[in-house]
C-alpha cells in the first residue's frame, strides 16, 4: 500500500530522478552520478520490497545510471585517437531527457490549472442530456431488455427436463441395438438432425449409448455427419445421399 502512495508522487524514473536532483539543488548539467545513483537505488530497493511488479521502468533507469557511472570511472584510454571527435559527456543525454521531462511537468501543471478553472464552469447540458447520452455507452449491455432475460431463462428451463424422473429402465439398450435404430431412422427419413436421436432418451446411460452408437456408425462409414455452419445444426445422413459414387 505504501508503494501505491509513492507511485502517486513519482510518475516514473525521470520524475524520481528529477526529485532527487532538485531536492539537493544539483546542477542538472553536472550531476554527481555516483551520489545520485546511490540515492536512486536506495529508493528502488524500498519500492522493490513493497511491490515487485511495477518497477520495470525504474530498473531500466537504474541500469542507465550505472552505465554512466561506469563510463565516468573508466580512464579515458584513447585520448589521442579521440582528440578530434571529443568524447561526449555520458551524462549529457540524461540531462537532456531530464530537462525535457521538466518541461513536460510544467506543461502538465499549467494544463491542470486550466482544468481547475474550467471545472468551475457548468454548462447547461452537463446536468441533463449529457448524462443520458454518456450512461448507456459506459456499460456494454445497452441492448439487453427484459425480454432477452426472459428468453435466456426459457432456454435454461428447457434444458432442464420438466418431466418427472421415471424409474430407471432395468434393461439398458445396447449400442448395437441403438445403431440399428438410428440407421433405420436415417434410412426412413433420408437425413435427420443429430439432436433428434436423443429426443426420447432420458437417462445418462441412454444418452451415452446413443452417442457411442453414432460414433460407431461414423467409424464404420455407415453414416456421415454434416454441419452447415459454425454452431449450426448437425445433420446425419447416409453416405450414398451425398456421395453417389459409393
Amino acid at each position, binding site marked *: 500500500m505504501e508503494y501505491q502512495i509513492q507511485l502517486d508522487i513519482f510518475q516514473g524514473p525521470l520524475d524520481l530522478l528529477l526529485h532527487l536532483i532538485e531536492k539537493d539543488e544539483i546542477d542538472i548539467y553536472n550531476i554527481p552520478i555516483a551520489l545520485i545513483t546511490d540515492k536512486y537505488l536506495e529508493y528502488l530497493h524500498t519500492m522493490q520490497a513493497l511491490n515487485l511488479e511495477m518497477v520495470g521502468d525504474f530498473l531500466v533507469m537504474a541500469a542507465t545510471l550505472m552505465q554512466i557511472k561506469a563510463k565516468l570511472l573508466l580512464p579515458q584510454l584513447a585520448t589521442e585517437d579521440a582528440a578530434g571527435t571529443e568524447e561526449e559527456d555520458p551524462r549529457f543525454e540524461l540531462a537532456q531527457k531530464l530537462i525535457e521531462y521538466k518541461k513536460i511537468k510544467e506543461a*502538465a501543471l499549467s*494544463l491542470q490549472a486550466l482544468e481547475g478553472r474550467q471545472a468551475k*464552469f*457548468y454548462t447547461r*447540458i452537463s446536468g441533463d442530456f449529457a448524462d443520458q447520452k454518456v450512461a448507456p455507452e459506459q456499460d456494454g449491455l445497452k441492448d439487453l431488455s427484459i425480454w432477452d432475460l426472459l428468453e435466456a431463462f426459457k432456454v435454461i428451463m428447457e434444458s432442464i427436463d420438466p418431466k418427472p424422473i421415471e424409474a430407471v429402465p432395468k434393461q439398458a439398450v445396447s449400442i448395437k441395438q441403438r445403431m440399428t435404430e438410428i440407421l433405420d431412422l436415417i434410412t426412413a427419413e433420408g437425413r435427420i438432425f443429430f439432436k433428434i436421436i436423443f429426443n426420447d432418451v432420458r437417462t445418462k446411460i441412454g444418452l451415452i449409448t446413443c452417442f457411442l452408437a453414432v460414433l460407431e456408425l461414423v467409424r464404420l462409414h455407415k453414416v456421415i455427419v454434416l454441419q452447415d455452419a459454425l454452431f449450426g445444426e448437425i445433420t446425419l445422413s447416409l453416405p450414398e445421399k451425398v456421395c453417389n459414387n459409393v
Partner: protein
Amino acid sequence: MNLIMVRAIIEALVFSSSEPINSKTMSDIIGISEHTVKQILTDLIEDRIRTQSGLHIIEVANGYQFVTHPECAPYVEKLQKAPRNVGLSQAAIETLAIVAYKQPITKAEIESLRGVSIESSLNTLVEKNLVEEAGRKDAPGRPILYRTTRQFLKYFGLNGLSELPQIPEWVDSAESLKFGVEHDGGGQNA
C-alpha cells in the same frame, strides 16, 4: 429585423445549442454577417459580466457556450448530486501535455519522454475523447500517431492549440507545428 431582436436570437441560439456554437453557423442561420454576430456576442459577453449575471457566455473550442458563473460553482455542485469530473490523474495529464505540445506523436515517443509505459493513461485519454488517432507515422512498423481532440479544447477551455499555455523553448516547436509549412516555404524563398 432590428438589433434587439438579432441580439435575442443569438442569445437563444447559444443557449439552445448543446455544443459550443460558432459564429459562422449563427450568421448562416440568421442571415447576417459573421462580423456582426461576433460584435453582438462580444457585447453580450461583456453585458453579462457587467450585470454580474449567474450565466456567462464563454468562447471555447472556436465557439460560444453558456456557462454558470465560476463563483456559483459550489452551489451548482450541491444541486448536482455527484461531484463532477475528479480531474485527470497526474500520469494522464503528463501524457496529455506531451500529446498537446508535440502532436502528432507516437506512443513510443511519448514513452521515451515520460520514461514510463503509458499504455493505461493513453487509453484513458482516448476513452475520454481527449486524444484521438491521427493516422500513422511513416516509420518502421508504421506506428499510430496521436493528437488532441476538440473535446480537449473544450475540457481546458481553449479556443485553439495556439492558446495552450506557453512553455519556454517549446513555443517554437508548437508554432512550427501549426505554421510549419508556411514557415518552411518562406525560409526557402528567402
